[in-house]
């Protein structure tokens, strides 16, 4: 198990933390973009290992979280129709829409199936030629090549009974959106390692240059996250702002060229609504016109559904790095992974769900109990 220790070697971790402490002269706010990174940071307590003044805030990179309620409602409307087999990644089934979740609809008799790969839909389509197979294509750039391949193969094979409900989000426009906010606190980014495995990191360079913000493409193992933080702090302290690649053992500047090529031939960039955040220009994908026969939104005429989130939920501000989960009065009380009120609690990779999973809602309750005890003692 020699290799297991290499990326979580406590001595190495300590030396990186010491180096951050040595070079740090002032507080910095750094956002990790990817939900997998958030999960790893909270699980390993990396944010609490860092020197005081280095604050990690949690970005919008959880695709399940930011799938807009409207699209979950559209999925629900399509999946409830007769002669439809609705296929999805497992993560989406428990996300509540306005009319309940897909899991409940399945228990009521709808034919809803969890698939491992989008390509499974082609097998299901061949076995059920009298049914229409709809795939709920959610995800960021990492998942786009798989979803694009389903549309491409369906078109090539003449599988007329296969369509996809596209709900794709793109990372760089969300970073630009955060940086443009008047309330922005983010001074540097840990970029998303597996998104860049597909896309490379060319498109992050103009963002770094324009907003004078360091972006370090980072993996998700504990030492990756510490090294990425160190590289970001080094740039911040030196007044530099460039894109650097901490995850070079996996990816390079160009990304996965065959995957990008297929994605671009199937999808085109479109405006997209993000749950908790709202519309962000050019931040998603839609199917190109050539693939219109496989566009579930067009085939099923699902209307734009206007939905509202609970007023108490602050997930929009959490996704922008303005607030933390424990700033929310509902966190861990009305809002839990079983009864989520908004984006950041609906998936394990959301900041609120990660904080809850690792017991951080109890910190808040303990602090409140101790404050009350003090007040009681003083009275």
């Amino acid at each position, binding site marked *: 198990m020699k290799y297991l220790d290499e990326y979580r070697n406590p001595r190495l971790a300590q030396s990186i933390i010491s180096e951050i402490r040595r070079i740090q002269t002032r507080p910095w706010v750094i956002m990790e973009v990817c939900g997998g990174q958030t999960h790893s940071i909270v699980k390993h307590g990396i944010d609490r290992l860092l020197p005081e003044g280095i604050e990690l805030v949690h970005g919008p990179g959880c695709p399940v979280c930011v799938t807009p309620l409207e699209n979950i409602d559209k999925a629900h409307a399509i999946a409830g129709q007769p002669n439809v087999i609705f296929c999805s990644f497992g993560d989406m089934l428990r996300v509540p829409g306005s009319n309940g979740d897909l899991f409940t609809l399945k228990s009521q008799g709808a034919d809803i199936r969890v698939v491992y790969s989008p390509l499974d839909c082609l097998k299901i389509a061949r076995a059920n030629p009298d049914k229409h197979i709809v795939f709920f294509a959610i995800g960021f750039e990492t998942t786009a090549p*798989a979803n694009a391949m389903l549309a491409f193969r369906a078109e090539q094979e003449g599988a007329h009974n296969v369509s996809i409900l596209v709900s794709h989000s793109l990372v760089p426009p969300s970073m630009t959106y955060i940086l443009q906010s008047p309330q922005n606190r983010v001074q540097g980014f840990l970029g998303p390692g597996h998104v860049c495995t597909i896309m490379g990191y060319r498109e992050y360079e103009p963002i770094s240059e324009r907003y004078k913000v360091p972006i370090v493409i980072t993996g998700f193992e504990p030492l990756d996250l510490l090294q990425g933080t160190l590289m970001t702090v080094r740039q911040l302290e030196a007044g530099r702002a460039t894109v650097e690649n901490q995850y070079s053992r996996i990816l390079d500047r160009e990304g*996965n060229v065959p995957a990008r090529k297929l994605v671009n031939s199937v999808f085109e960039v479109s405006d997209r609504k993000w749950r908790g955040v709202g519309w962000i220009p050019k931040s998603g994908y839609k199917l190109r016109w050539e693939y219109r026969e496989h566009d579930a939104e067009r085939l099923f005429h699902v209307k734009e559904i206007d939905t509202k989130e609970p007023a108490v939920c602050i997930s929009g501000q959490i996704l922008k790095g303005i607030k933390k989960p424990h700033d929310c009065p509902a966190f861990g009380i009305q809002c839990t992974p079983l009864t989520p009120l908004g984006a950041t609690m609906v998936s394990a990779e959301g900041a609120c769900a990660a904080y809850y999973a690792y017991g951080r809602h109890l910190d808040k309750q303990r602090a409140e109990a101790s404050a009350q005890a003090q007040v009681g003692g003083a009275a």
Partner: protein
Amino acid sequence: MCLAIPGKVLEEFDRGGMRIAKVQFGGIVREASLDYTPQAKVGDYVLVHVGFAISTVNAEEAERTYQLLEEMDQLTELDAPVVDEVPTRKPQ
């Protein structure tokens, strides 16, 4: 859900013009498309996301990452049911 899971390519074959591999993840073997990793061959380790290899990795990286994902309970996508291929029905 953007995390990719490392596994070892055990064998590869063609299915309807697609390069498909049987990939071993710990004790589970699942299929993955190699269309986006033309360099991958039997014996190599690949990072697989929702049934597609997106990058090749070395054995050490694969071992370490797999263990970490297991600890983080991030291997659930491998539990999705296997969809068996059925022969295409001929028109009556």
